[in-house]
């Protein structure tokens, strides 16, 4: 089974990297980009028998730092 884990910064957490990307888009002449938030995507190949609980633990224990990040699990 293939999983895609999307990790994004929580609302309210400042994202200096996203801000830099937003400025760079502006420099390229793309007007009207009011915000950019950078995140991460992980694609995992796991055994079909892997439980939902185990997948959730992978995210909360390692792939995301839940102090600053949210995660979303997609089955693909």
């Amino acid at each position, binding site marked *: 089974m293939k999983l895609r884990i999307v990790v994004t910064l929580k609302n*309210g*957490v*400042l994202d*200096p*990297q996203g801000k*830099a990307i937003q400025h760079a888009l502006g420099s390229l002449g793309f007007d009207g980009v009011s915000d950019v938030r950078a995140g991460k995507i992980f694609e995992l190949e796991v055994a079909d028998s892997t439980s939902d609980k185990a997948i959730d633990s992978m995210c909360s*224990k*390692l*792939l995301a*730092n839940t*102090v*600053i990040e949210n995660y979303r699990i997609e089955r693909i």
Partner: protein
Amino acid sequence: MKTAVIVFPGSNCDRDMAVALEQVTGKASAMVWHGDSTLPDNLDLIALPGGFSYGDYLRCGAIAGRSPVMQAVVEAAERGVPVLGVCNGFQVLTETGLLPGALMRNRDLDFICRDVPMIVENSQSVFTSGYRQGQEITIPVAHHDGNYFADSETLNMLESEGRVAFRYSDSINGSARNIAGILNMRGNVLGMMPHPERRIEDAHGGSDGRVLFEGLLAAIA
């Protein structure tokens, strides 16, 4: 005083830390590899050094925080053994949950490597007893990810419990409330971005960092 320095792949301040500890305590530190699952007995201090453990992959300190030796470090910390995390070591401590919050990319995205003035906010801890309350000291920082973040509830708790150990005199990296170093609730775990081991003799430009190790030695002896 019996000390250990934990060495991760990518640590680069482990030897500096060991030299500082040996100069102050007169005894060589045990160098403990990240893959070990046990620590030497009867340690008086465990130091997590600066560097780029595991190449800062995933997040700074994230992989190191889950390495075999960290389980032993967490257990030792829970028994009350003093644990000092400097720079990447601070990041590892937040990733293991021994300290609250997280260290994020510096506000201006730059790597900051210079001497910075900071205030000793708590001179009562085992790590900071050599300083005067409110003393301004100068210690170098060298980091890309030293922007301390925690929610306002956690920040208020840290402040009200006297757990902010050091605060930058000026904002350098966007750190919440200019926090440079924090203690755990029990006071035996200190994480700090500045490098005290790089300021232990006149040849370093001063010895404000040495005071931390001397205070620790005096508090433990």
